[in-house]
């Protein structure tokens, strides 16, 4: 019978777009399996993230416990795999709660029912800093140009999303961002090796586009990234004079995000689509979890 296994594309309505994540519900296990087993399963899945879920204890503020593993390591926070987990619970496991709370390494993270069938993550808003506000916010323009292949048109801003002192490079046009062909080896040596590129969108329905390069974190280009929008949303909200924004991450896979500024929070919403439903059978390595509720 085995343990349920789902593959979900997050921040898209189209299979094979968005950012993929595997979701493994271990809902009725009393304890986590060993870390190296969770790591080996994540490596076997070979997606950027595998999310593991357990039902939280009765006295917890959260509904579920949630951990995220890349093929190589356990991480502290992952937006797209959280969205995928919320989608899995609602779509495949019969969960109808308006707001699902997860207890994670980064505290309580929630997924709420959003508008028009989207799911919503609630993150802190972190407006970018201009260069000079923090002594360590600095990028050598020549090095940046050599690694990105182009120089941004606006002064570089900085944020601590993803890593500390992440440069945010604002370009004139969507075409400029699309055209970037970074030298990832060189980019990995600039600061922490992560860079956000952004521009206004050509599409009248979309406010801004972005791409996120993170060779310093082991991912040359992330397909769709929730956390970068913690800085991008307040930046574009300020520049465009609006608090509800539509964003598109124009990686090869592409993804769509709806951002709502609410005080010191950003609510980041998107769709998910399931591409695989099945089960894994690791025999005695992993105790069987009960079958998911029929849906």
């Amino acid at each position, binding site marked *: 019978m*085995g343990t349920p*296994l789902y*593959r979900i594309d997050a921040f898209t309505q189209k*299979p*094979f777009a968005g950012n*993929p994540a595997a979701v493994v519900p271990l809902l009725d296990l009393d304890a986590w399996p060993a870390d190296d087993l969770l790591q*080996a*399963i994540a*490596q*076997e899945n*070979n*997606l950027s993230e595998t999310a593991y879920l357990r039902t939280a204890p009765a006295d917890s503020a959260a509904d579920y416990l949630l951990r995220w593993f890349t093929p190589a390591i356990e991480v502290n926070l992952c937006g797209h795999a959280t969205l995928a987990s919320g989608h899995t619970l609602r779509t495949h496991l019969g969960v109808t709660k308006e707001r699902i709370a997860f207890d994670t390494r980064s505290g309580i993270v929630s997924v709420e029912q959003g508008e028009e069938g989207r799911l919503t993550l609630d993150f802190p808003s972190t407006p970018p800093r201009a260069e000079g506000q923090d002594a360590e916010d600095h990028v050598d323009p020549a090095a940046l140009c050599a690694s990105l292949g182009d120089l941004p048109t606006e002064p570089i801003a900085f944020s601590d999303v993803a890593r500390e002192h992440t440069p945010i490079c604002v370009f004139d046009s969507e075409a400029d961002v699309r055209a970037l062909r970074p030298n990832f080896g060189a980019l990995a040596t600039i600061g922490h090796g992560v860079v956000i590129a952004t521009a206004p969108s050509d599409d009248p329905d979309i406010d801004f586009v972005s791409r996120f390069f993170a060779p310093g974190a082991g991912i040359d280009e992330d397909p769709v990234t929730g956390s970068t929008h913690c800085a991008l949303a307040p930046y574009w909200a300020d520049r465009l004079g609006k608090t509800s924004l539509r964003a598109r991450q124009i990686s090869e896979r592409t993804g769509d995000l709806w951002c709502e500024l609410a005080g010191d929070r950003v609510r980041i919403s998107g769709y998910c689509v*399931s*591409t*695989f*439903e*099945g*089960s*894994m*059978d*690791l*025999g005695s*390595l992993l105790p069987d979890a009960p079958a998911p509720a029929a849906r």
Partner: protein
Amino acid sequence: MRIELYQVDAFAPDPLGGNPACVALPDSTLDDSAMLAIARELNQPMTAFVSAPNGDGSRRLRWFHEGGESAFCGHATFASGHVLLNVLDGAGDAVEFDTIAGRLRVERAGEGLLSLTVPALPLEPHTEPRLVGALGREPLEVYRSEHDLLAVLETAHDVATIHANTKVLRSIEARGVVVTAPADNEHLDFVSRFLGTLPEGYEDAATGSAHAMMTPYWSKRLGITEGLRAAQLSPRGGEFVCDALEDNKVRLTGQAFTYAKGTLTV
């Protein structure tokens, strides 16, 4: 469209070891771009697409990975045989696949094991000056097959401790460099690793084609034609028992474990 999908660990010492492959059994023929898109999404070393049986019971089989269609993949063929013979529990004791590399046969080998029979890959002596820089040591012998280089080292420890210079390796014009040496214990006859040139730093977990290349060499050197026991010293590990057959074929026997099964919706 819903497609029956399995993920299998091939030539695996244990579950979650060996070389993973996805095996898809679509109800209707998929076009090439769909198969490539599926393979990219699944992000496994290889995804095999198995067709419905032909008149003679054989099945068309094609292999796709992130970079496109593959000209030959041993482990995904082995995985496909496992699905048809062990998981779907049909097709008698053997299945023949009709592929661009010719007819490939997977059959039950007793005790839950399976065998894959493939053409032996001929070797020619070769020189490659970049190998020393790539491997960090001078091989004792170097050969070339159609796709790969074979570098024979002195000891299993040498093979295990190679730390390839991936930049130099990448410059070598081959799919990969197989490093091999005699085993250092009585349970095995030879060991190897497969160091891919692309993507940079790629090491394959359990490589059927490498064993198709090595079996005639080790058979001749050790004077054993059947039952050569080989370990691939990759992080996930691979285990093969190799036979050098007549008419230039090699039979590779090992274990396959079903990691997952389910339905892909595209």
